[in-house]
């Protein structure tokens, strides 16, 4: 026995050949393992060599950062001045210039809440109240008219705050609606089930743009005379109705994942339908579907860009307004790349978070 263990330590002392460890070993194992992989690596390296240097030259080396539009036209590289000069208009739209700290504070509040909510240890009832208070405070900051803040019409809202507002309020309102729809679809009552199925399939079968058209063109016809609802709210309603159908499908997945035993155990305790759902089924089902729900949040965030088609002043529309200014005409690529980076940062951090959460929840599972 002792001898064998001594043998193992002895053989451990012999180091592996240089070619299979360290940098060389890694390169051989991951890039030049066999003739096919070697060829693939060389071809890829060549393609990168052709593509990357011109892009780097355009983006950084030849780029200008802080000039007027006329000087930009002489530069060989990208004209980031369009962003630097119009930064505040792109971010905040027509919001009164001296009041723009208000949407900024609202956004910081939102980011703070999102950051704090990341950790599952913080998920308590207090956090829920915190979110409600935070959303009210954000609305108050944007809208004004109270506490000495001057009132700002919603027609002047725009840019990044509008994008965030549409996605955050959209998801907050769509979530309960989606849960109710999912429960309805699982219901034993045929008419309720049928209504929910029709709603969910109808909404999921049509593009969001048709609902936005409906909100902007047809919705005013639904209201009695004299009542008008502003454009942002109409788009918001369309986004809520759309997102709710997708959330319903995700939640349904969670409900179907519950074993029958859970329902039967709840019934045998004498709980009624409401209590069964509220205390037994939903807490478990909603926990399973947290990661796909985050994916829905990501797509809702991306989908808000569609409101540009019904002429709301979101990020895309404000940058297009800058681009229609003769001084900055022709620098669309730079402006769109900037907006793309903003969206990418938002979506990437959310999808990373979703993956982390998935791992954590997997670990929790017995």
């Amino acid at each position: 026995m002792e001898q064998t263990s001594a043998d193992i330590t002895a053989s451990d002392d012999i180091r592996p050949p240089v070619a299979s460890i360290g940098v060389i070993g890694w390169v051989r194992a991951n890039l030049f393992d066999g003739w096919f992989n070697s060829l693939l690596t060389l071809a890829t390296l060549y393609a990168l060599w052709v593509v990357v240097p011109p892009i780097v030259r355009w983006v950084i080396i030849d780029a200008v950062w802080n000039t007027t539009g006329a000087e930009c036209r002489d530069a060989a590289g990208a004209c980031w001045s369009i962003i630097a000069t119009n930064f505040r208009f792109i971010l905040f739209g027509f919001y009164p210039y001296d009041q723009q700290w208000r949407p900024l504070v609202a956004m910081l509040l939102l980011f703070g809440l999102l950051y704090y909510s990341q950790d599952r240890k913080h998920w308590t009832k207090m956090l829920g109240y915190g979110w409600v208070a935070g959303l009210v405070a954000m609305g108050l900051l944007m809208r004004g008219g109270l506490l000495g803040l001057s009132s700002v019409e919603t027609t002047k809202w725009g840019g990044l705050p509008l994008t965030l507002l549409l996605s955050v309020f959209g998801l907050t309102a769509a979530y309960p609606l989606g849960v109710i729809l999912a429960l309805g679809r699982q219901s034993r009552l045929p008419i309720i089930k049928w209504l929910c199925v029709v709603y969910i399939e109808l909404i999921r079968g049509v593009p969001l743009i048709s609902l936005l058209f409906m909100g902007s063109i047809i919705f005013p016809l639904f209201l009695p005379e004299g009542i008008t609802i502003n454009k942002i709210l109409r788009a918001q309603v369309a986004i809520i109705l759309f997102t709710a159908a997708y959330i319903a499908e995700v939640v349904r997945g969670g409900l179907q994942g519950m074993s029958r035993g859970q329902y039967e155990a709840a019934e045998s305790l004498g709980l009624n339908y409401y209590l069964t759902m509220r205390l037994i089924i939903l807490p478990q089902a909603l926990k399973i579907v947290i990661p796909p729900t985050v994916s829905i949040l990501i797509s809702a965030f991306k989908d808000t860009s569609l409101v540009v088609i019904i002429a709301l002043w979101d990020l895309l529309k404000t940058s297009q307004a800058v681009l229609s200014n003769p001084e900055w005409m022709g620098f669309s690529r730079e402006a769109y790349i900037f907006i793309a980076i903003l969206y990418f940062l938002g979506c990437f951090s959310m999808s990373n978070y979703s993956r982390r959460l998935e791992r954590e929840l997997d670990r929790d599972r017995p």
Partner: protein
Amino acid sequence: MGNAAAQKVPFWLDPKKRGIVFQIGTVCMVGLLAYYLISNVLINLEKQSIATGWGFLTKESSFEVGESLISYSSADTYARALLVGALNTLKVSFIGIVITVILGTVVGIARLSTNWLVSRLAKGYIEVMQDIPVLLQLFFWYAVFYETFPSPRQALNPITGVFLCNRGVAFAVPAAHPAHAYMLAALVVGLVLAFFLRRWAKKRQDRTGQSFPVFRVSAGMVVGFPLLAWLAFGAPTAMDVPKLVGFNFTGGLTLSPEFFALLMGLVLYTGAFVAEVVRAGIQSVSRGQQEAAMSIGLRPSQVLNLVILPQALRVIIPPLTSQMLNLTKNSSLAVAIGFPDFVSVANTTINQTGQSIEGVALIMAVYLFFSLSTSAFMNWYNKRVKLVER
């Protein structure tokens, strides 16, 4: 005993009766809401003096549509304009889906490559494309066409026969020749024969156990027959190369910037999602399956065709279908860059006639038709390939 208990329960505590009451209540509420909304609509329409109905479809449209698969002029009816739009939607969706599936498969396999560089590049592509709204990508490619590419006079000519300019992409295509019709017929004959060959070979294998190289023979027929037809007609090689006449190209095949930007945006965006679907599908087949198939003596091609693919496809097909539907639905964003798809034409129709309810209803009906017919087909297919468990 049971009877006595049932009589004691008042009707509001009997789940069955309560359910019926609840449902009647819901129906009444939905009905009342619908009645209220519809009556409001009718009042509002009367005030704006808009006549409802589908009469506008047969009126003269008097607007031009940029590109069309069927003959169309502004003297045609709205119905024909809408048909042109629907065909354009189908065109861009069909071509988009074909390219997306190819791109997604390649990237999905590259993502699983043992080559570190290739798999990292594929991962980067997937991350970046998934996280940028497709509408923004469409605007970007459209802007690239209009701002970066030169006018037709200085058109870029990266490969012989391909011209890039701000009026679109012009390709050289084989010049029209009677041989083409015969080549198409030969292709159809080859496909039909290959189908029957496959059935015959399967029957013979079931009966005698002898296998037949179906794939090689049918590939030979499908490629060989058109080739023979081409050779029989003296192998015409004339190409219809686009030529600069005045300010634009004539001849060849020209794709408009709108079409190209739409296709590019949709394909690059959806391709990233398809790549993830393909990766998940391939990873879902355990290594043991491959090893087991090899240990019973199957050839590598048989391992792939008989063991790996059938299992991977079962996982891949449902999410792949929903991605295809997403691409079709996202093609409605064409309205933002001016490609005349169905939504774009319907939008113009709404603006001209004021028939907003009918217009939006048409848009929804057309997309619902696409979605529901696709999911009906998929349900049928899923039932066919479903795992039959003992």
